[in-house]
């Protein structure tokens, strides 16, 4: 049985791993292939700082909150494993800052030690009168994606460096199921007006004295339109840009100025930080994640597709929960085809 995963960002690689881990024992003929035109370090995931943190409100989308929790718990379980450092996984504490009181987020009990900021702590951040402190996780994709790739390679998954132009291109060739993890460019495979770019730009600096993430919020403007500082294992990421509908992957001088000035105002010591690089990327934004089965016609044959895209600015945060859900959908495809027995009743 041949399964083609399209996309080698955090979603594609983790979906491939989840499916292989769960089903290669049940389906001896399972052959997994991964197609992508961009691999680490050139995927959208690679540009992200890697902080586990969902948006402020889940907009009533309990499913996404559960997937976020699944991801956090899964990563926390790996924290003390020998692989943690290789995965780019570590704990990071920090601050979320507001100019007015806000309701607690859906993820307050998922992270560790969530609490409100004390008045003395708020003195550190003039202009902000309310905030949270908590300990979360960092998962740096420049380490995590290679780690996932190694796990997949060890399992015999084959990689193809190729831009896939249509589902038919991979689907028709004896491939039974296609897993669509193409992120921003899903629309090229199947039009989806709900999928829109949320353009971001970041500046990477050397500021090793920064030990906390600091994320400011402007509730009126929206998520990621206010400065943030996220220290990684080597570089610190400065950001605060979210432009809906902007497809440009070029760095903008105006955005550079916005990020630099607002982050230096937030943390004056950053003025002494050395700038290492700058990057722009497109968050694959959607009102909700598209994670569902679909069928696509290849000539006379109906092909199965599992969509797993539209994770906006929280792909790393939600990836494992979605990968597990994609694997469950894959399992349901297998059941429908009689490839595995559904439990507890036997199929007629």
């Amino acid at each position, binding site marked *: 049985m041949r399964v083609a995963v399209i996309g080698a960002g955090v979603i594609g690689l983790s979906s491939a791993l989840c499916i292989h881990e769960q089903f290669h024992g049940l389906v001896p003929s399972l052959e997994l292939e991964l197609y992508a035109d961009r691999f680490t370090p050139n995927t959208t995931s690679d540009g992200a700082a890697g902080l586990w943190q969902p948006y402020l409100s889940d907009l009533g989308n309990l499913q996404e909150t559960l997937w976020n929790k699944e991801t956090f718990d899964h990563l926390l379980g790996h924290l003390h494993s020998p692989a943690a450092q290789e995965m780019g996984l*570590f*704990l990071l504490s920090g601050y979320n800052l507001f100019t007015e009181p806000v309701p607690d987020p859906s993820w307050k009990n998922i992270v560790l030690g969530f609490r409100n900021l004390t008045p003395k702590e708020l003195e550190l951040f003039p202009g902000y009168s309310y905030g949270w*402190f908590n300990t979360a996780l960092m998962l740096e994709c420049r380490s995590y994606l290679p780690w996932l790739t190694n796990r997949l390679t060890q399992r015999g998954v084959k990689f193809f460096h190729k831009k896939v132009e249509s589902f038919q291109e991979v689907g028709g060739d004896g491939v039974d199921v296609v897993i669509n993890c193409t992120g921003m460019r899903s629309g090229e495979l199947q039009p989806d007006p709900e999928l829109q770019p949320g353009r971001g730009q970041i500046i990477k600096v050397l*500021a090793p004295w920064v030990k906390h993430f600091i994320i400011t919020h402007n509730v009126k403007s929206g998520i990621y339109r206010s400065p943030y500082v996220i220290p990684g294992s080597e570089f610190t990421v400065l950001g605060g840009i979210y432009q809906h509908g902007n497809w440009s992957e070029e760095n903008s001088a105006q955005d550079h100025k916005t990020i630099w000035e607002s982050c230096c105002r937030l943390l*004056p010591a950053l003025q002494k930080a050395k700038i290492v690089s700058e990057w722009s990327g497109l968050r694959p934004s959607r009102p909700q994640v598209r994670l569902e089965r679909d069928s696509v016609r290849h000539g006379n044959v109906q092909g199965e597709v599992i969509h797993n895209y539209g994770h906006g600015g929280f792909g790393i945060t939600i990836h494992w929960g979605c990968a597990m859900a994609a694997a469950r959908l894959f399992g349901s495809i297998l059941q429908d085809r009689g490839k595995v027995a559904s439990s507890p009743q036997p199929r007629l």
Partner: protein
Amino acid sequence: MAAPKVAVIGAGVIGLSTALCIVETCPSCSVTVLSDQFSPNTTSDVAAGMLIPHTYPGTPIHVQKQWFKETFTYLFAISNSAEASEAGIQLVSGWQVFKSPPKEELPFWSDAVLGFRSMSEAELQKFPQCRFGQAFTTLKCECPPYLLWLEKRLKATGVQMYNRKISDLWELHSEYDIIVNCTGIGAHQLVGDKKLFPVRGQVLQVYAPWVKNFIRDGDGLTYIYPGIHRVTLGGTREKESWNLSPDPSTTKDIFDRCCSLEPSLREAHDIKVKVGLRPSRHCVRLQREVLNQEGVKLPVVHNYGHGAGGISVHRGTAKDAARLVGECIAALRGSSSGAKL
């Protein structure tokens, strides 16, 4: 007396911060720093510099609290400014963990640090051997950067610094009006203080940049303190040991203890080993004294014996020492026949 000439002996965190406080409170003073060691070779340079006070049995708690609060407030302002990285001041959060609940539920400094609270059950799961813990945010004052920053500020005010070993305070009586003794462990020999004793500490400085939180065993013996470039792993408390050479079996023991608190440290590399002798005393010696030799008087202000807590209280004790220097000056001016022949 026109411009009182003050000699500060010692260029660790106590000597340099005391010199700076004297300059700030007595602008007419001419201050000189004399020391046989400067950064990076002082005891302060070995310390991780975490603002977590040590308790001195012989000093009233309200005094220690005042010293700590003064120091914390001073460094907090620097951490908030553009100079934070140059001065080596960072904000760090983390956990203090206990295998069994501590004797005192709240340390005296719990309201001086930020966000002090008990750890949640979920947080404690990270430390399977620990039943209780406290989480808080404090400051880390890293030497050498901090000492270099103090030296820079001192030089900007005209303070001269000389590499000189003083064997006897009387060596200085003809050149200086007031001596400020910030010699740390050196006071054992310099002023013959037998109540001062070394507590040897060995630390490892490792490269593990993914460690962003501090972790400390409540007994204070095992700790992981992330600094600007390196993480300090500790430690030891060996009373009366004057041995400044790193001990390899101690290195292994420290490393193992720290790895059991933070398993990812197994991947740490480039281990540097350092040793420092904490200048320990029942209480910090912060007092005025007038030495007398054949009718010649020499005012001395002592500021030493900070043991394991020097960096945590340095600014508070420096301010008190500067106040004592002020009293010495007033006494000298008040004495009509002049202080010295």
